[in-house]
């Protein structure tokens, strides 16, 4: 292998944190195996993003800009990336396992007739092959996957698992523009509009700290207790399916099998029993705190810190402690 290409996701010109984590892993692999690290930015009006990215230790930044690519188009972005993949001669193409990364990587893999490992928590180069580790069966099993063939190999990496790349010095000479003609009428499918969910809260999939509530919350109004802790900690609000199905909170917040799979630094489960489908979404969190009345709740089997007790009493006290700590 010679070259790694990292797809760097941006939205509205903002580079995603997950993309810098993927870049960090690419740099690590690059150093160990002596591989060049290229990056790709796709979209419109990317000057600021390109400048930011050029502060990172990379060998080349490929820039594919077209007004028609301002918002995500699966086929439009695939075509742009196919170009860059060819120009760069990459044999390993990495994505972050975000909504866009998972979608785009699958389409590009098919176009390049290449193997793809989705949502990996570890990748290794073994001789001419790529080995990828990914959680399967609700996180109860870890699968080691071998990618074969002549390359390129594709993989998407789970957010919040890999250490992010650190900025270096600005080097605009790293930037190369790809000559790309994409018109709106060429696109099979395009985004007409992005509708932000109510408020501009941090998404559970992107937060470093997540506080979740379950059936024990008893009603939508009580989520305010958790929201206060979320705000004190600077995190995101999550929920079990029971709370979502009851209509107390939007599905966007659901963690688990049919919700989001997340790996925050800190996950605080409040009044959640810990059903296997819930664990599927959060058991790879780094630190897990569980607060539950029932000492036998299965959530305690994965918890690093266990508090048996009434969340309605304990959570406000924790919020107070956090405020005191931050105030100090």
């Amino acid at each position, binding site marked *: 292998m010679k070259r790694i290409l990292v797809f760097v996701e941006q939205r509205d010109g903002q580079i995603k944190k997950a993309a810098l984590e993927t870049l960090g892993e690419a740099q690590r692999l690059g150093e160990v195996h002596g591989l060049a690290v290229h990056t790709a930015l796709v979209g419109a009006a990317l000057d600021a993003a390109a400048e930011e990215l050029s502060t990172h230790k990379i060998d080349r930044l490929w820039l594919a800009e077209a007004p028609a690519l301002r918002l*995500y188009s699966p086929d439009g972005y695939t075509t742009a990336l196919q170009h860059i993949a060819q120009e760069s001669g990459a044999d390993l193409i990495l994505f972050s396992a975000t909504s866009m990364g998972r979608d785009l990587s699958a389409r590009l*893999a098919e176009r390049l007739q290449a193997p793809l*490992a989705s949502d990996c928590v570890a990748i290794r180069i073994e001789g001419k092959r790529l080995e990828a580790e990914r959680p399967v069966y609700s996180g109860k099993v870890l699968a080691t996957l071998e*990618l074969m063939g002549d390359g390129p190999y594709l993989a998407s990496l789970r957010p919040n698992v890999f250490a992010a790349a650190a900025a270096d010095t600005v080097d605009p000479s790293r930037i190369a523009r790809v000559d790309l003609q994409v018109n709106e009428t060429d696109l099979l499918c395009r*985004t007409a509009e992005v509708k932000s969910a109510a408020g*501009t809260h941090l998404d559970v999939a992107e937060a470093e700290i997540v506080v979740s509530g379950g059936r024990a919350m008893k009603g939508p109004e009580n989520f305010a207790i958790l929201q206060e802790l979320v705000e004190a900690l600077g995190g995101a609000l999550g929920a079990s399916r029971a709370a979502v199905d009851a209509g107390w909170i939007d599905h966007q917040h659901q963690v688990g099998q049919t919700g989001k799979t997340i790996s925050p630094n*800190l996950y605080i489960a409040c009044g959640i029993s810990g059903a*296997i489908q819930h664990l599927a979404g959060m058991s790879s969190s780094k630190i897990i705190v569980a607060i539950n009345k029932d000492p036998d709740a299965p959530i305690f089997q994965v918890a690093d*810190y266990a508090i048996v007790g009434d969340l309605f009493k304990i959570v406000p006290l924790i919020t107070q*402690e956090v405020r005191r700590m931050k105030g100090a």
Partner: protein
Amino acid sequence: MKIIVFIKQVPDTATKIVLAPDGKSLDETNVNFVINPYDEFALEEALQIKDRDPLTQVTVISLGVERAQNALRSALAMGADGAVLLKDEALLGSDAGATARVLVAALKDVSFDLLLFGKQGVGLDQGQVDIRVAEALGLPHAGVVVKLEIDGGRAVAEREIEGAHEIMNFALPAVVTAQKGLNEPRYASLKGIMAAKKKPIEIRDCAALGLRADQVGESGSLTRIKKLSLPPARKEGHKIEGDPASQAKELIRLLREEAKAL
């Protein structure tokens, strides 16, 4: 409209997972197999379109082994009009790329307006087959869809992304993959279950699909499961005792000093 829904039979998520002696597969002895939950959302969406326009034809297709007939039978009981099982020894071990190749082969000479999939098959959670099929056929796709509107030959789909929804526009025929929230899957009625017993399930092998054995199964796949293992056990948790106030204090102290999470 002609709609095709792709369904995969998967282990029930509540199943206790036991690894087979080869270290690469599951011991299926006590596994309860069901329709992939996301595929149920896909099927329900097709049936709702049929409810509004009774001329709609809904066909379900699955690549699988003999027991996948049960999944197809359940889909027929829910209201699908026809079912096809793609079954051949040579298909065993197909990865996402090879599976997509087989599904594409099954669509040759078939006319359709809409292909519906789940956003991912639970268990392996790859989320690839659906999008690979779209690309192989040169069709638009919208993934992880929570709302779908079809009007004439065009569709508007709302797809879930981090903290927002993307509204996507495209023409039919197209691929749409279903996310929870798209609808509430119906239960099969007794009448549906009785009627399903009489509906035939068409079975097609590689020869009928026009596929050579080396294009599918392990020999047609570029990924292979090398090993399945149990994830490292989390270390024993720390129980925090005391009254609520001291529990809260101690938790914050531990998170700061021991876990360094704050």
